């Protein structure tokens, strides 16, 4: 490959598609450390740089900690910066993840979602990005490769908005989306340039006008800084909506704003999920609807900021909500999405039972009949008022008894 990258509809690997989308965003600086299943993304990007297909500085580093640290400097100096990582790599970045958000640096990072050790496992779930949920990064989850491409471009628009100025994680399911080949419309440079203006940093490191980022502050100041991050996070809600809406006229695609709903209007049972599982759930909803089951789907696109009011509104008419969590907050017996949905409904006036299902950890496959069994359990709750509790789905009892 050399020169110009090919745009238009074609079958490519999900990792290539995200690398292509990043390239179209014209990042000034890329720094990443390879780790499965993120590796193909950074291999493709470094190839683009080596071939001269993109005009980015690629900084090789010895660890994820250094990769994100390099981007703190790059972004503070006014560069549009990009990284990608997963699992243990994200965990190694943890300290810098918080710093990045606290310094209000609008870096975009692809998280190729993978489980956390131990035991070591390279397959998909959401435990890595969930562990960073309190860091001040916006978190967007995508359903398929096309949404991944489109959301990557939207992510820079959201992050770099002066009213937001926060970093964004675009979360894609490891292997399921990173290693899939499927048709995708790769964006052309001209359209992306029109959609995404050049990065105009709110404030930059400049020797002629010295400033500091990430200073030491005493108790007189710290809490207020954190409050400002929360305010920026809150302002990002309308920016996420705007980015989704303004994307549509040029590119013809729209995925909802902070959430998307499918067949929820009259649904008694609402399934909630994030990421690629949503695709499978759409098939299940269509199948069960054709057999007369009143079921719908709520997809969470933005986990941070959390779409509490949208979820309350979408579930207000339901008889039961089933949250399918690809993570577990150990010690609570359920996934973080389930806990947060219950918390957000508590003061909203919506009193609908919420069933939590921890599912698909470490890449355990989620077949259609597993989802159908979850819907059957929800029907039991509606019919017989069975006590609602959370559970781990498809456990191998022979291994744990």
């Amino acid at each position, binding site marked *: 490959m050399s020169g110009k990258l090919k745009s238009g509809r074609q079958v490519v690997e999900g990792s290539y598609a995200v690398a292509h989308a990043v390239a179209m965003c014209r990042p000034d600086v890329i720094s990443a450390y390879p780790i499965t299943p993120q590796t193909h993304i950074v291999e493709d990007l470094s190839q683009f740089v080596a071939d001269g297909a993109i005009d980015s500085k690629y900084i090789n580093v010895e660890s994820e900690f250094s990769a994100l640290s390099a981007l703190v400097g790059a972004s503070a100096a006014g560069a549009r910066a990009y990284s990608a990582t997963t699992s243990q790599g994200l965990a190694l970045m943890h300290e810098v993840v918080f710093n990045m958000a606290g310094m209000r640096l609008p870096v975009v990072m692809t998280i190729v979602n993978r489980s956390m050790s131990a035991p070591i496992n390279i397959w998909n779930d959401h435990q890595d990005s969930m562990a960073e949920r309190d860091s001040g990064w916006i978190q967007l989850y995508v359903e398929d490769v096309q949404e991944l491409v489109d959301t990557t471009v939207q992510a820079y628009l959201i992050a770099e908005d002066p009213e937001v100025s926060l970093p964004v994680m675009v979360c894609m*399911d490891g292997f399921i989306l990173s290693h899939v080949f499927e048709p995708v419309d790769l964006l052309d440079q001209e359209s992306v340039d029109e959609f995404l203006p050049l990065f105009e940093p709110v404030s930059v490191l400049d020797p002629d006008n010295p400033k500091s980022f990430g200073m030491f502050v005493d108790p007189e100041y710290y809490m207020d800084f954190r409050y400002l991050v929360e305010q920026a996070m809150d302002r990002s809600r309308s920016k996420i909506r705007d980015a989704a809406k303004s994307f549509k006229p040029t590119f013809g695609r729209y995925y909802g704003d902070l959430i998307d709903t499918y067949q929820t209007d009259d649904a008694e049972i609402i399934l909630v999920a994030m990421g690629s599982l949503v*695709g*499978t759930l759409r098939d299940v909803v269509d199948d069960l609807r054709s057999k007369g089951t009143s079921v719908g789907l709520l997809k969470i696109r933005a986990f941070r900021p959390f779409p509490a009011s949208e979820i309350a509104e979408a579930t207000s008419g339901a008889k039961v909500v089933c949250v399918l969590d690809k993570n577990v907050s150990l010690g609570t017996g359920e996934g973080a999405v389930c806990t947060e949905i219950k918390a957000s409904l508590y003061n909203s006036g919506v009193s609908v039972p919420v069933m939590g299902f921890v599912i698909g950890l470490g890449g355990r496959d989620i077949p259609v009949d597993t989802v159908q069994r979850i819907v059957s359990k929800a029907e039991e709750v509606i019919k017989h008022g069975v006590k609602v509790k959370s559970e781990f789905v498809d456990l191998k009892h022979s291994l744990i008894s």
Partner: protein
Amino acid sequence: MKEIRIHGRGGQGSVTAAELLAIAAFEDGMHSQAFPSFGVERRGAPVMAFVRLSDKTIRLRSQVYEPDYVIVQDATLIEAVDVAGGLKADGTIIINTEHNPDNLPLETKAAVKTIDATRIAIDIIGRPIMNTVMLGAFAGASGEVTAESIKNAVRDRFPGKVGEKNADAVQSAYDRVVGS
């Protein structure tokens, strides 16, 4: 929607075959999805790859449990892996072997087709890499994808002489299956 499962051993290009099949089907105007089985790949170890083909957008993300077609790149896998597991009764399994279907230790109600793909690969490509040959056989046996699109996908992936030889091998396997 049609679902395809490819069995091979690490190093036989099963994942590449799945990708090429998805690209070829897309060229034929279909929606397609190809993905590896989620295992650690080691040379020689049994591996799987999956393909879905449909005239509508493919949303399903689970592994394939009841395939319409199974492609077996290495007949020694029959004794190691349940290659016909879940295969639909009206489906087809295509096996790389010099033996007749009747002589295989295989239990299935599905149609069994065999082709000596390794021999074709050695004769035409010059190496015992049979993944593209098996795609030609699949095109001939299933009619789900055209040989022309498979050949284009192969030429695109392997530019130059290697691609041309592979394309010839695809055609040879296709002709052999259609003619049989």
